[in-house]
């Protein structure tokens, strides 16, 4: 079958790979109908997460049709239209029992890598390096989905493929940031990053009752989407001082909940950017955390900061003093999709959550390398490139 493969740092190509097959009794095989780029893929593409092998298939956010089921699969039948959580979870371990599915003890076949890096191993993810299990990704004609009764969800008839597609990761990740960040009715929420995840986090905060939600970015087209499709306020950080603006808009308090949806390749104006880039290139720090720093500094006393963006290793100049002295709660997680996808599909069916606008560029899988180039360069107003295998 055809698949988009990582061939080296900043090298992608569509090639032939073996068709997936049932390997565990709980597996299904899905014919991929739509699969979408994610900002976190750019960390893999750029070599910032050094656990890729030449030939790895990218992609972790997808919707498709079940074409084969393992002997133990009970919830799905051939022909079902399903959206699948990007993280792979068994549904039986203690972490799954706590609905912290991305921390699953049994979903990662290569736990030694992350256990050594981070002390404990999270679960596995589709198409996201050998540190996350080396599972072939969704930018392919077919994909094997382990633990399908836990991680694959039938899409309601009222929900289009393109809307359901984003329940797979963007919407569930965003919702998690607002939920576990502790958004309460009446809160003021600030979201760093107006990509798909940031937009979904903002929308989730609004649906959870936040009084004001502000999204911070530098791309006008993305901020325009926030205003038009999410209904949140915007701040362009290249045109204003974010810290002062947030103080001003919150009566001097700062946002109650700050959600960082940027990740390890954050951009910021001023000398901080050059400092972080030099240190990252010299491998003196693995990640650029400028958005996290800003969120910690801006957050109100006793507030909450949730890190949704993907980070891999170590950062420099983390404002630990602000965290401690302001009594902040800082939390992060990979996405617990299984916890949120059923609810998100219901909201999508009711029209409370729309995502089609995120798919700014739709193209055949054969054009995926160009789709990633456009996505990476943010050309032509690209928010997400969607591939049709």
């Amino acid at each position, binding site marked *: 079958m055809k698949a988009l493969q990582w061939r080296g740092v900043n090298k992608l190509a569509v090639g032939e790979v073996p068709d997936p097959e049932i390997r565990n009794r709980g597996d299904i095989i899905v014919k991929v109908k739509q699969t979408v780029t994610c900002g976190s893929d750019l960390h893999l593409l750029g070599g910032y997460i050094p656990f890729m092998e030449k030939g790895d298939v990218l992609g972790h956010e997808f919707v498709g049709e079940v074409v084969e089921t393992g002997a133990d699969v009970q919830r799905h039948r051939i022909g079902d239209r399903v959206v699948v959580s990007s993280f*792979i979870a068994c549904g039986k371990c203690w972490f799954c029992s706590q609905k912290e599915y991305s921390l699953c*003890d049994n979903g990662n076949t290569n736990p030694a890598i992350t256990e050594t890096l981070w002390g404990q191993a999270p679960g596995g993810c589709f198409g996201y390096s050998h540190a996350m*299990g080396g599972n072939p990704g969704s930018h392919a004609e077919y994909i094997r989905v382990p633990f399908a009764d836990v991680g694959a969800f039938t899409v309601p008839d009222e929900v289009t493929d393109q809307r359901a597609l984003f329940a797979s990761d963007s919407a569930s990740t965003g919702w998690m940031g607002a939920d576990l960040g502790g958004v309460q009715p009446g809160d003021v929420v600030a979201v760093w990053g107006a990509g798909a995840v940031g937009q979904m986090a903002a929308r989730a905060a609004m649906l959870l009752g936040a009084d004001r939600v502000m999204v911070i970015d530098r791309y006008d087209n993305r901020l325009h989407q926030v205003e038009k499709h999410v209904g949140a306020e915007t701040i362009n950080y290249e045109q204003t001082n974010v810290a002062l603006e947030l103080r001003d808009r919150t009566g001097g308090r700062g946002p109650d909940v700050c959600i960082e949806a940027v990740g390890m390749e954050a951009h910021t104006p001023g000398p901080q950017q050059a400092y972080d880039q030099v240190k990252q290139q010299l491998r003196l720090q693995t990640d650029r955390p400028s958005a996290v720093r800003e969120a910690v500094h801006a957050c109100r006393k006793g507030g909450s900061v949730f890190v949704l963006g993907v980070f891999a290793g170590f950062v420099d100049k983390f404002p630990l003093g602000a965290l401690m002295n302001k009594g902040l709660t800082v939390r992060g997680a990979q996405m617990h999709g299984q916890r949120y996808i059923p609810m998100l599909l219901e909201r999508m069916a009711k029209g409370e959550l729309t995502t089609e606008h995120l798919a700014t560029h739709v193209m055949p899988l054969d054009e995926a390398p160009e789709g990633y180039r456009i996505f990476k360069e943010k050309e032509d107003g690209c928010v997400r490139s969607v591939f049709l295998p």
Partner: protein
Amino acid sequence: MRRIPRTVLAGAAVAGGVAAAGFAVRRRASTTGGDPRWHSVTVFRPLDDVGANLPEKLRALEVQLHPAPGDRGTEVRARSAGGEVPDGEVQRVLRESRSLLEVGDVLQPGGPTTTPTPLNKPLRAITRRTRTGGLS
């Protein structure tokens, strides 16, 4: 946290048919005077259930079972008493045993789509032996 002494644990494990193998190996360890490292995982199943269903590869090791605090299941410690089983292999057996006990199956890696290069040789050496090594 309630800790059950090793002897009591061994007794508890009798119900599951674990103790015979455990005692046998432990005796051998004491005679060799070795002190191989213990490795641990927590299995989200009750102690009696774990003891009664200990996977075969785990039975070949010296095993201790403790109830985990907060209804988190059972803490399983294992080591190769004589040191003949490498630490990485003990870790793999523990992880696979946890999966067998919790899920009834062990997740297999996806089919290979990659090609070897000089740059990815170290990574391939790690991923070729799934669930081996780490800190557990």
